[in-house]
């Protein structure tokens, strides 16, 4: 290297470091940008005329009415949470059970294969899940429950459960793997059966990670769009039973955005729903992170 190039060495390195730093913080920039640009599209109506009270308490969602436009989103909010929680009801026991199985009871050769299957399950696109809900699950529910319609809360919940299980299994398994072997050995030495060891020692010890796994599963369920759009039906009202069709917040945006004229009131309200969804998943993610950090402090 010539001496002039030698002088430039630290400068070149500094420039490269700046560029890499820029890429590093880009994630922050993008999250911020998502919030800003989504809020921007709904901001005007949000500050002039948006009735938050009606939005959160009324089930009357008539955005395209010619005479009396109403944006009551309560039914949609209920739709989102009812499907999500029902799906968690199914997914959490199965997911945690499978995580425990893979982590503690599974023969090693089977383990790798199982994990691959779970990974593939996680890879299935949401529109394909929606299609499955529309076709297979639909007829299954109609046959099994003699329901008039197979596109309902239960359909959506089962599909969402199958979609969320992989997250719960993989993060849950990580949480269990993180518990030191000494815990297991101590419990077994005291005469516990394997199951008692799991139930009384491992699960409490991995509590934080398992909780985070469940939270992230909820986040996935709440944010899911295409699958619920295709599987839960089109009825906007508070469901009285699991066999009733519902509509979620996500599905509403997807279904109505194409029809709403750009920058109209309806359009802006849909963006406001977007902000609501962003906030919900943001809070869930931060909470899950804080809970996981709780382990680090032990």
């Amino acid at each position, binding site marked *: 290297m010539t001496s002039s190039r030698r002088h430039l060495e630290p400068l070149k390195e500094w420039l490269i470091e700046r560029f890499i730093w820029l890429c590093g*913080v880009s994630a922050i920039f993008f999250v911020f*940008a998502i919030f800003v640009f989504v809020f921007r599209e709904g901001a005007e109506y949000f500050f002039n005329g948006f009735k938050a009270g009606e939005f959160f308490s009324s089930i009357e969602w008539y955005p395209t009415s010619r005479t009396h436009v109403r944006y009551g989103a309560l039914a949609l909010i209920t739709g989102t949470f009812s499907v999500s929680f029902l799906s968690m009801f199914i997914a959490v*026991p199965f997911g945690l059970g499978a995580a425990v199985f893979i982590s503690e009871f599974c023969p090693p050769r089977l383990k790798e294969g199982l994990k691959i299957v779970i990974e593939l399950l996680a890879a299935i696109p949401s529109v394909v899940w929606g299609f499955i809900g529309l076709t297979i699950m639909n007829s299954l529910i109609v046959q099994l429950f003699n329901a008039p319609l197979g596109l309902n809360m239960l359909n959506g919940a089962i599909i969402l459960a199958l979609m969320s299980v992989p997250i719960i299994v993989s993060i849950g398994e990580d949480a269990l793997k993180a518990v030191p072997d000494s815990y297991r050995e101590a419990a077994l030495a005291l005469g516990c059966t394997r*199951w008692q060891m799991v139930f009384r020692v491992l699960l409490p010890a991995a509590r934080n990670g398992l909780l985070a796994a469940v939270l992230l599963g909820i986040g996935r369920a709440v944010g899911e769009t295409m699958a619920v759009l295709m599987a839960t039906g089109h009825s906007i009202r508070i469901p009285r039973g699991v066999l009733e069709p519902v509509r979620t917040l996500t599905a509403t945006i997807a279904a109505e955005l194409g029809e709403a004229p750009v920058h109209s009131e309806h359009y802006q309200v849909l963006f406001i729903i*977007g902000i609501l969804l962003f906030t919900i998943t943001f809070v869930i993610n931060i909470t899950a992170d804080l809970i996981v950090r709780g382990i680090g402090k032990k």
Partner: protein
Amino acid sequence: MFEATDQTRRKQRQEKAIQYLLTAMTTIIVLPLLLIIFYLLYKAAPILSLEFLFENPIHGMRAGGIWAPLLGTIYLVLISLLIATPVGIFAAIYLNEYSRESWMTRVINLAVVNLAGVPSIVHALFGLGAFVLFAGIGRSILAASLTLAIMTLPVIIASTKESLAAVPHSFREACWNVGATRWQTIRHVVLPNSISGILTGVILQVSRAAGETAPVMFTGAVFFKAIQTGDPFAYGLLDQCMALSMHLFTISTQVPDVPEALTYGTAVVLLGVVLLFNALAIFLRVKLRGKKKW
């Protein structure tokens, strides 16, 4: 003295029961994947053929093939890949090679997790607001690809970070000791030995991008677009396109009287592409594990 007591026998039975229960639970989760694949294949069988892939949809999408959506998906995937990969790799390099334990690093990691957790419809709204409208690109492959790129960034970051971290620290120290700069060390030693992990991330990104519907639905993908079959350059960057994922949605919910085999066939192709890529990533991961240079 060591005969099994009643209590011990009960414990053992309990243990067995729980083991069966857990096995059952795991099987219930795993079985659907196999059943679904078989059922879809069975229903799609009548229509699966090479013509299906290379012909355009005709008769209002009630017949024909999926060439236009397939090509559109390829465009979207390739372009989003080209955008997301460099940014993702460098972001991972920053996180693993340069950043110190600080609140800033924690915020970045939080941001990456959040980016991965944002609902796909919100990504669609973002793409619409930022690229289609604000940046004025309009509904186009470019806008949709940008949206997909940001959405799939966390996949590349996570995979790359993991493979960078697997390179032993002693290699870096040995390079610094002979006067190599941090970047020289990364470029000549760390990165080349992380290729497998990076490749895995790229493959996963591709599979994710191919399967997404909502983010492309409002930023560049359309209901129908007529293009020349067999022409790989049929789409332009600022054109709108059809997409396989959206096509499945369209023909199963928006168009009446579509023959069953056609919808199942589209689902099979989409699922097949995605699972194939994921299987490839898994295969690579396992195969390259044995090929390490240290």
